C-alpha cells in the first residue's frame, strides 16, 4: 500500500514537472523582462508571434521542442550538417543577436559565402519583425546562464558567424 502511494506520488510529480516544462517551452510561463533582442526588451506579444512563426517555419527541421534533428552532430551523406537544436544543448546561444538575425534572414550561405546548408534564407519568406520575433521566442526558452552568456556576446559583438 505504502509502496503504491510512493509510486503514485512519483508519477504525479513527474507529470507536473513535464507540464511545467511544456508550459515553459510553449511560452506560457516566459518572463519577458529577462529577454531582449538587439538590446530592446521583448514583449509577450512578440514571443507569442515568434512561437507561431517557429512552429510554421522552423520546427520541421529544428524540432517542435527546439531539439534539432536526430544525431545532429553527425554529418549527412551529402556532407551537410543536420539542423542543430536551438535549446541550450546546441550552439545557437553562442551567437550574437546580430549574427542570428543575419543567418536567419540571409541563410548561412549568405553570411559565410560558399557554405552549403539546408537552411533557407528566410528574408523572402518572413518579415524582419517576424524574424526578430522567432529569435525572441527561441531566446525566451534558454536558461538564465545561456541568456547571460549570449547577452555578453551580443553586447561585445565580437562577431563570429
Amino acid at each position, binding site marked *: 500500500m505504502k509502496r503504491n502511494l510512493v509510486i503514485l506520488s512519483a508519477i504525479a510529480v513527474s507529470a507536473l514537472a513535464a507540464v511545467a516544462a511544456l508550459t515553459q517551452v510553449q511560452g506560457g510561463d516566459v518572463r519577458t523582462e529577462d529577454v531582449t533582442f538587439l538590446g530592446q526588451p521583448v514583449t509577450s506579444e512578440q514571443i507569442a508571434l515568434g512561437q507561431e512563426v517557429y512552429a510554421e517555419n522552423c520546427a520541421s527541421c529544428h524540432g517542435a521542442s527546439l531539439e534539432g534533428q536526430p544525431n545532429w552532430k553527425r554529418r549527412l551523406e551529402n*556532407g551537410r550538417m543536420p539542423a542543430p537544436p536551438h535549446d541550450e544543448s546546441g550552439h545557437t546561444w553562442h551567437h*550574437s543577436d*546580430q549574427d542570428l538575425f543575419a543567418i536567419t534572414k540571409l541563410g548561412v550561405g549568405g553570411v559565410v559565402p560558399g557554405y*552549403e546548408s539546408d537552411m533557407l534564407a528566410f528574408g523572402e519568406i518572413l518579415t524582419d519583425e517576424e524574424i526578430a520575433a522567432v529569435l525572441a521566442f527561441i531566446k525566451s526558452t534558454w536558461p538564465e546562464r545561456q541568456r547571460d*552568456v549570449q547577452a555578453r556576446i551580443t553586447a561585445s559583438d565580437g562577431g563570429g558567424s
Partner: protein
Amino acid sequence: MKDANMTTTRRYSTRFSRRAFLGAMVAGAGLIGLPFSLRAAPGATGPAIAFDGDALILAEGSLSRSDGTDGWMELSGPTAGGILSLATHPRRLGRIAAGLTSGGIALSEDGGHGWESRSQGLPDAPVAAVTVATAEPDTVYAAICGDGLWKSEDAGRSWVFAMDRPWLADAERDLTALASVDLATGMGGIWIYAGTELGLIRVPDCFCRWQDVQPGDAMDALVSGKPAPMEAPLPEGETINALVSAASSPTRLYAALPSGIWESQDAGVVWSQKSSTRALAVAVHPANADHVAAITGDGLVESRDGGANWTALARG
C-alpha cells in the same frame, strides 16, 4: 572567405604522412604475426613530443623523459597501446595525456611514470591527436580516426562527441593534429585549431562549424568592407603532422609538416618556414614561445630562438 566545410578543393598530398607511416608500421607488425611485440613494448610508437614544464616527454621508439640535467630517463608507457599523440597543460605539471594506437586515451599524473586508461565512452579507434583546453586543464579533446572530435570535461573520465570531421574536397577528412588556442572566437569561447591531410582548419569551442583560418572574422569583413590583410598560408594540400600554440603567447603557432617546421606569429594567417627537414612532431615550451623542440628527419632537434637556429638534442 572560403567555406572550409563544403567547398574547398585542394590537391591531395602525396608526400610522406606520419599517419600513413604509422598505419603501414602497424599493419606490417600484424602481417608478420608479432602482435605481442606491441604489448611487450608499450609506448613504442610515436613520434610525439610535449613539454611538461621544463621537461621534455618523447615518444619515439620508446617513451622517455628529460628534465634537462640528467639526460633521458626511459619510461614504461601505457600498457594499453602505443602512443600516437601527447598533450600537457602548463597549470597541471606532471599530467600527460596520450592518444593511443589501440584506441582511447591514457593519462599520467606523475610525469609519465604511471598511466591510467581514460577511454570510457570513446570509440575503439586510434587517437590521432589530443590537446588540453588552455583555459580548462580538465578539458581534453581527442581526434578519433575515422570518427571525429570528442571532448572530456573531467580529464578523460567521460567523453562526449563534439563535432564531426571537416568536409574538405568532397569528403570527410581525419584530424591529424590538434591545438587549443587561447584566443577569443567572439562567441564566448576560444579556438581549437586542427590539422588534416589537406592542411589547417579550426573550429570554435562551441563547435558550430569548421572554418578556414582567416584574419578577423566573417562578420567583420562583411560589415566593414575593409581590404583583407596579407595572408601567407601553409603549403596547400600538405599534411599537418603536429600543431602547437604557445601558452605564453597564443598567437604563436608551430606546425610540423613534411616540408619542415613552420611558424606563425598571428594565429595562423601568415606562416614562415623555419626548417626544411621533414617534421613529424613539434612542441613549444609553456613559458618561452621561442623554445621549440621537434622530431624531424634529422632526429630530435631544438631551437631557442623561435626556429631561426636548430641544434640536435642528444638522446644518450
